[in-house]
């Protein structure tokens, strides 16, 4: 194992990455959390162990140079996937292959060369920057940790470059994080993530703490950096409009599983899974076309005790007996999408698009 680790590290440099080749492959990934009461309480009260299946068997791959997004409501497990990929959690089972090498549950030492190439941008720029460090030191830390510069002067020069790259000035290195606004702080987070010259960035809700005008600045910056540096993004968000704007391919998550994975243009023009349709229909309509929205029923169930069969069946207008008993697996639909839905597979759900049309597919309005 360790042989392959060093071998991969040495052979795969930035220039050799070819677009279109999977850089990350996730297979059967699961992460369970034990959320039981303390042992004594359990014994006294006769309670069973409680297991939260945060991520319950998902598969996807991300090609070099593309942006893959995971979207879903709170508690669907999207952030857990992000943490699993960067190694902040170990998986309960399944594999995460980074350029063909399984990185799941590796030791710190084995992960070190991978970690340089795999960085993360967090949601809250107020919590993810050390308030006691100068910006210069925050950004220099990865450069020093991975030995990417030969002299202190070179480190400083590189920090200046990075700050310029994210739209700040090299002089800002002397300041502390509190002297910056939310958007500028998120730029600092990006600069820090880029400091180790990564190929792959995991972005966990990078703009949801920001105002819209600032969000636009950050999204544009991320897009420019992707073009310039050939980065691959795993983008995690609950905001479908943002996801639509940035992604090449999108995975929709519901209660720890993928409901639908599709190229962005297909997902947004021709959503198949009833949950995807529901999500798309909840977006407030800026065009003010006055279309009637599907009344959304129910809430996300408790993930500790998810519904049997397809987890979405209690909210799904198309659910039948099979949906309640048998869990659907993602099946290809022919146009590059994967949909985990019995109704779609059997062809009993109409294929009508929702966006731009006031009409609601039959049954959905009920």
């Amino acid at each position, binding site marked *: 194992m360790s042989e392959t680790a060093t071998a991969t590290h040495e052979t795969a440099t930035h220039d050799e990455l070819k677009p279109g080749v999977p850089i990350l492959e996730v297979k059967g990934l699961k992460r369970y959390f034990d959320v039981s009461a303390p042992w004594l309480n359990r014994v006294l009260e006769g309670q069973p162990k409680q297991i939260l299946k945060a991520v319950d068997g998902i598969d996807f791959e991300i090609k070099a140079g593309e942006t893959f997004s995971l979207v879903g*409501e709170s508690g669907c497990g999207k952030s857990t996937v992000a943490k699993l990929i960067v190694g902040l959690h170990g998986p309960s089972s399944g594999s995460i292959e980074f350029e063909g090498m399984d990185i799941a549950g590796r030791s710190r030492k084995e992960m070190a060369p991978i970690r340089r190439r795999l960085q993360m941008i967090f949601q809250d720029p107020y919590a993810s920057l050390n308030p006691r460090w100068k910006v210069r030191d925050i950004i220099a830390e990865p450069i020093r940790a991975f030995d990417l510069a030969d002299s202190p002067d070179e480190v400083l020069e590189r920090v200046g470059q990075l700050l310029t790259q994210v739209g700040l000035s090299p002089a800002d290195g002397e300041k502390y994080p509190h002297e910056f606004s*939310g958007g500028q702080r998120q730029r600092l987070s990006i600069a820090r993530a880029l400091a180790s010259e990564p190929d792959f960035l995991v972005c966990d809700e990078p703009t949801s703490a920001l105002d819209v005008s*600032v969000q636009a600045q950050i999204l544009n910056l991320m897009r420019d950096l992707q073009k310039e540096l050939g980065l691959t993004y795993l983008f995690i968000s609950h905001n*479908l409009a943002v996801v*639509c704007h940035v992604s090449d391919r999108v995975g929709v998550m519901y209660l720890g599983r993928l409901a639908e994975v599709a190229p962005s243009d297909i997902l947004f023009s021709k959503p198949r899974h009833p949950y995807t349709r529901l999500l798309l229909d*909840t977006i407030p309509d800026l065009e*003010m076309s006055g279309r009637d929205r599907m009344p*959304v029923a129910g809430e996300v169930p408790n993930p500790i005790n998810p519904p049997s069969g397809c987890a979405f069946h209690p909210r799904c207008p198309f659910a039948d007996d099979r949906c309640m008993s048998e869990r659907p697996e993602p099946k290809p639909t022919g146009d590059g999408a994967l949909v985990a839905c019995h109704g779609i597979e059997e062809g009993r759900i109409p294929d009508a698009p929702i966006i731009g049309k006031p009409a609601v597919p039959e049954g959905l309005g009920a």
Partner: protein
Amino acid sequence: MSKHLLEVKNLRIEFPTRKGLLTAIDDVSFHIDEGEVLGVVGESGAGKSLTGAAIIGLLEPPGRVAGGEIVMNGRRIDNLGYEEMRKIRGREIGAIFQDPLTSLNPLYTVGRQLTETIMTHTDMTPTKARERAVELLTEVGIPAPEKRVDQYPHQFSGGMRQRVVIALALCVNPKLVVADEPTTALDVSIQAQIIALLKKLCRDHGTAVMLVTHDMGVIAETADRVAVMYAGRIAEIGPVRQVVKQAKHPYTEGLMGSIPVIGHTDEKLRQIEGSMPRLTNIPTGCAFNPRCPKAFDRCFKERPDPIDVDGTEVACWLYDKEAAHV
């Protein structure tokens, strides 16, 4: 008697600090008619929540109303004492806040909080008040209300809690509800439910709403008129369709352009450079001038006041016809 339900005239809110006086709201005027939904939109720090807080009389000290007046139903309410204001709050003006968990008391059942509010403002008997509470919970779409009325807030999910808060705000049929970011803490699918509910209830009861939010989409769905705030002032106020579709103020234009929309796959989002100035450092002239792509001499010297342009009031010198410019 004024003909508007609520009238805010030249409102000015100040915060005395060690470094001097901060003017958080500067000369803001607007009105809300009966049964109307006024959306107030802006970025963090624009002063939209403060305006709402001033109307319900819950401005946190040291903040204070330093000028202007707030008139509700022909009666001035910004200078009332605590007790008098308490009577108005709840009966005439209801409030819905962002976080439904912190706006409910965790130690009392939902029913007790509802009946308390009802009995404070009406002379209903406890039994009657309880019936009304169950009725309200039914109205806001809570399943099994007879059982739920005796439960505590922690037994409700986020969306259900916000429904309870709406029931609380509407329990004595106020004329106006100030809703401060009512859906920001909720998931998108729940957000849609809550907006639909708020819209329906206010239409049924003829309640006017001041809807404070940063989400232009929510405003477009819900509001009749919208006020766009920037750095403590109103940049633009007018019918929602006009503001959303044909924004006049360069700030509104930029704001609309920076919202990603599904179906528009433009390479880049239009962005407004820079960020909102801090209150300590508001530029002279128009506060938007450092970020404005169309700023000219006058914007740096004189502060624009709202000018009527086709039914929309815009605080921008571009629309001043008498100016030498154009």
